[in-house]
């Protein structure tokens, strides 16, 4: 996926100025940056939710998006929320198998008939994760999906994400302001500054699933230096 000379402003507020970025297919690109630097805007540009100048070249048109807030329909159960995005892409017969399988993977099978108001924050985020992976997308966008979770919940959800991703790779852009989260999942990390400057660009040699607690102190130091 390629962003070619992308510019975006809100009035006088220039968020991207002739910004270029290439994301490798089937790899996770983490975009680190402080709040307000344009991370959400970047994902909205890629997903077509906001207008912009320039071009985005994509290998396919289907996009899964895990938003910063969960964005679940309050009137639909967990199961129906996932079904809602699949009706247009899979046949009626195939949908139940896909949903039940993904719900087992995110440990929500027993909660499939609950409404969003009955879910805890971590469970809601899991539904959002399940929805993104159930949908057969070419591109996966993630906007600080682990932000509002406490440490142990965050660790478990990141594990779930890594196990889903291992069997179902997609070209992924993962934005966060948390450097540890970036190291827990990404293949490559860039540091973004307002206006579209890339302050650091590091490719991590060890794949996320083999990484464990591998020490990236040199890389981390280089990233911390530009922050």
């Amino acid at each position, binding site marked *: 996926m390629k962003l070619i000379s992308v510019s975006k402003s809100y009035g006088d507020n220039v968020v991207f100025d002739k910004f270029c970025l290439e994301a490798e297919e089937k790899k996770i690109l983490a975009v680190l940056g402080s709040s307000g630097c344009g991370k959400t805007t970047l994902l909205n540009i890629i997903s077509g*939710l906001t207008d912009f100048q320039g071009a985005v070249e994509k290998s396919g048109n289907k*996009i*899964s998006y895990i*938003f910063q807030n969960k964005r679940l329909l309050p*009137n639909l159960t967990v199961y*129906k929320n996932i079904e*809602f*995005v699949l*009706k247009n892409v899979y046949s009626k017969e195939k949908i139940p198998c896909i949903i039940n399988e993904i719900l087992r993977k995110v440990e929500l099978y027993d909660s499939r008939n609950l409404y969003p*108001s009955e879910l805890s924050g971590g469970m809601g985020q899991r539904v959002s994760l399940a929805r993104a992976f159930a949908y057969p997308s070419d591109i996966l966008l993630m906007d600080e999906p682990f932000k509002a979770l406490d440490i142990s919940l965050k660790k478990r959800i990141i594990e779930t994400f890594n196990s889903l991703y291992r069997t179902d790779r997609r070209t992924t852009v993962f934005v966060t302001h948390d450097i540890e989260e970036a190291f827990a999942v990404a293949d490559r990390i860039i540091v973004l500054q307002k206006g579209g400057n890339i302050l650091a660009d590091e490719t991590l040699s060890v794949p996320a699933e083999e990484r464990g607690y591998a020490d990236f102190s040199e890389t981390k130091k280089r990233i911390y230096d530009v922050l």
Partner: protein
Amino acid sequence: MKLKLKKILPDIIYPFAAVGIIVALWAIFAAAIDMELIVPSIGSTFDKLGNLLTGADFYRALGNTLLRTAASFLTGALAALLLSLVSLNDSVRKFLSPVIKIVRSVPTMSVILLTVIWMKPATSPIFVAFLINFPIMYSGFYSAFSGVDKDLVAMSKVYGVKFKNRLFELYLPAIAPAAFDCMQSSIGLTVKIVISAEVIAQTRYSMGIAMQMARGYLETAELLAWTLAAVVLSYILELLIFAIKKAFVRWK
């Protein structure tokens, strides 16, 4: 069990107290004025109501007025739903909003008098009530539609959800609570307007004409009995809409 009783007791006590106070005031006025022609006693009003309830004319009038109310209300609600939905498009809204504003600001009495000239007595009350309830429901539905969570709309667009599914699973459920509240208050208004229009259009076999005739014969007790019937009719229709809302909005 005890707790539950404690919780629902106010729901029973207060309405009864309110009705009790109204009835007491009525009894006091009737006794003080002591003229059946001006303020009939409770006893004679309920006697009349009893008489009405045993005659076939009552049900004929009630049925006709109810049908007119239903026809007017359902067409009003349907038109309001369709037009408020297409008003989500900005240009459509800009075109429609002055039209609706004009319809809204025409005095009720002019609408009634004009349509009585243009239409048959049996159908003009339907149209009059439509002209009154449609703009109210349109505004209510439109503001409910514009309150639909933009984040959810954006989500469904990214995931390529078809308009049909968005309509039935996102938009309509989202507006349902507010839309039903709006319909609940419109139905009572529709009953009132239909009856008023029936009075002026001299619609045969209707509650409106029955009230008008009771007034003409100075049968004040009978007029009050019809009024009670109209109040009960409104109340039952409101309850019906409330029940449909409860059956439909299950996720809260």
